[in-house]
């Protein structure tokens, strides 16, 4: 399984480059249309995925 761990690095490419996933206003969060909070949310998610790959390759 560990061999495939680096594939996690590709997940944020799919999530952010396939624009139809998030090119909508609904649902709003704290006044932010979905388009904006989805991208902001992906910052920590992408970091976390990279961290998981990093930990997995060290152990």
């Amino acid at each position, binding site marked *: 399984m560990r061999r495939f761990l680096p594939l996690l690095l590709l997940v944020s490419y799919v999530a952010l*480059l396939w624009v*139809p996933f998030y090119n909508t206003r609904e649902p709003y969060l704290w*006044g932010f249309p979905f*388009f*904006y909070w989805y991208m*902001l949310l992906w*910052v*920590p998610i*992408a970091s976390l995925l990279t961290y998981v*790959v990093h930990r997995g390759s060290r152990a």
Partner: protein
Amino acid sequence: MNDIHWTAWSVFGFFFALVTVLGFVASRWKAADLSHLHEWGLGGRRFGTLITWFLLGGDLYTAYTVIAVPALVFGVGAYGFFAMPYTIITYPFVFAVMPRLWNVCRRNHYLTTADFVEGRYGSHWLALAVAVTGVLATMPYIALQLVGMQVVFEAMGFGGMREGSEIALVVAFVVLALYTYSSGLRAPAMIAFVKDIMIYIFVLAAVIIIPAQLGGFGAIFDAADKAFAAKPAVPPTGLILQPAQVTAFASLALGSAFALFLYPHAATGTLAASSANVIRRNAILLPTYSVALGLIALLGYMAIAAHVPAKGNAVVPALIMQSFPEWFAGFCFAAIALGALVPAAIMSIGAANLVTRNIWRPYVNARMSPAQQSSVAKITSLIVKVGALVFVVFLPLEFAINLQLLGGIWILQTFPAVVFGLFTRWFRPLPLLAGWAAGMALGTTLSWLQGVKPVYALPGIGLVYIGLIALLANILVAIAGTVLAAAMKRAPTPDATQPGDFADALTDPR
């Protein structure tokens, strides 16, 4: 613009003086012999995780970003946010690629990406192409940092003094040039601590105070939505992307993400790290700046909601002046101006390293001593900055913006030689050079024919970033040429690297 904001200028002056002192003191930081190029130009490769985080953050998220991204968002809305996916997806790429570059460069004492290309392919012509592309792409980028400074100077005012902002720019740049000359990469590394902390304070204050004044984020987005609805349908604007903008948005994000770390300033900041793991940890930690960038982009909507009496690059300074007390406006302006100095210093050092190692050494004087290399680089860093200054003072702004846009397309054409070279030696240097030339020619032509635009309408797909189209042509030419060379049984060129050079050394700290 007839009044002078003395309070703002005073606060600004204080911080400028502070970093000037830091810039000169930096020459004694992690003390070493600065007459060696790897000390002057790479800080002796001794920057740990924290310093690298500040250095790269200060390097990549520039003053021009703080000015131009909100200005674009102010003008067109959602499309201006392509910088968000761009600066998120660049880091998985950095994680996978840049530690290999760092390892092979450390093992073989390479100081630039072009050094690596020369060693890997045994071709100083391919290295020259990479180096010249890097220098060409960097010059207008430095010029745009000056533009970033100029707009904050103008917001603080000169009391009607003619050429006031030009004089202020010259003063700031002479000071910058002097401490870069004496301290090398240590100067921007030290100043980046001050700059980044100030930028974070500015951003936090902006996203708390300004929405409170304007009735919350909901009201800000509503105001922007109404403003876009009142605009004509062409060019497309809006709070979310119009269908025609989708492919342009995604391809700009992807192409820019691949291009970013090929720029000399990004490569220099990365190679200055003290280990491959420092780079991996930074690929995890640097996205913090992307959150800041997303919030900075929102300043464009805040400016719409606040009805600032400005447009284009003057939007952010006008919003700051209108929303904050004058002393804090001075603080924010200082943060933006320092946001110009840090990248400008690193860009000029990156360009100087390339000129010294990959243009001067192979073509002018092959027997340079380390001290001679260091002095050529120092002088080049001065020339590069003067060139950028001349650019901004004497040529129309349009020129620098257009060249910077082309620079992004150009730097992406070094991708096959540098990045593929880190994983395989299958490609041959001459086909790579031909691919580079094809990509440069195609990219420049497609952009030029439309009056210097970043995107081109591909039939059946839609608008696509020209840098990516040119890169595809580049790769196809390199593959075809390599297949042809192998079929003709041409002898491969020498490879100075060893297969083990790309992996972490067992003795490195994990």
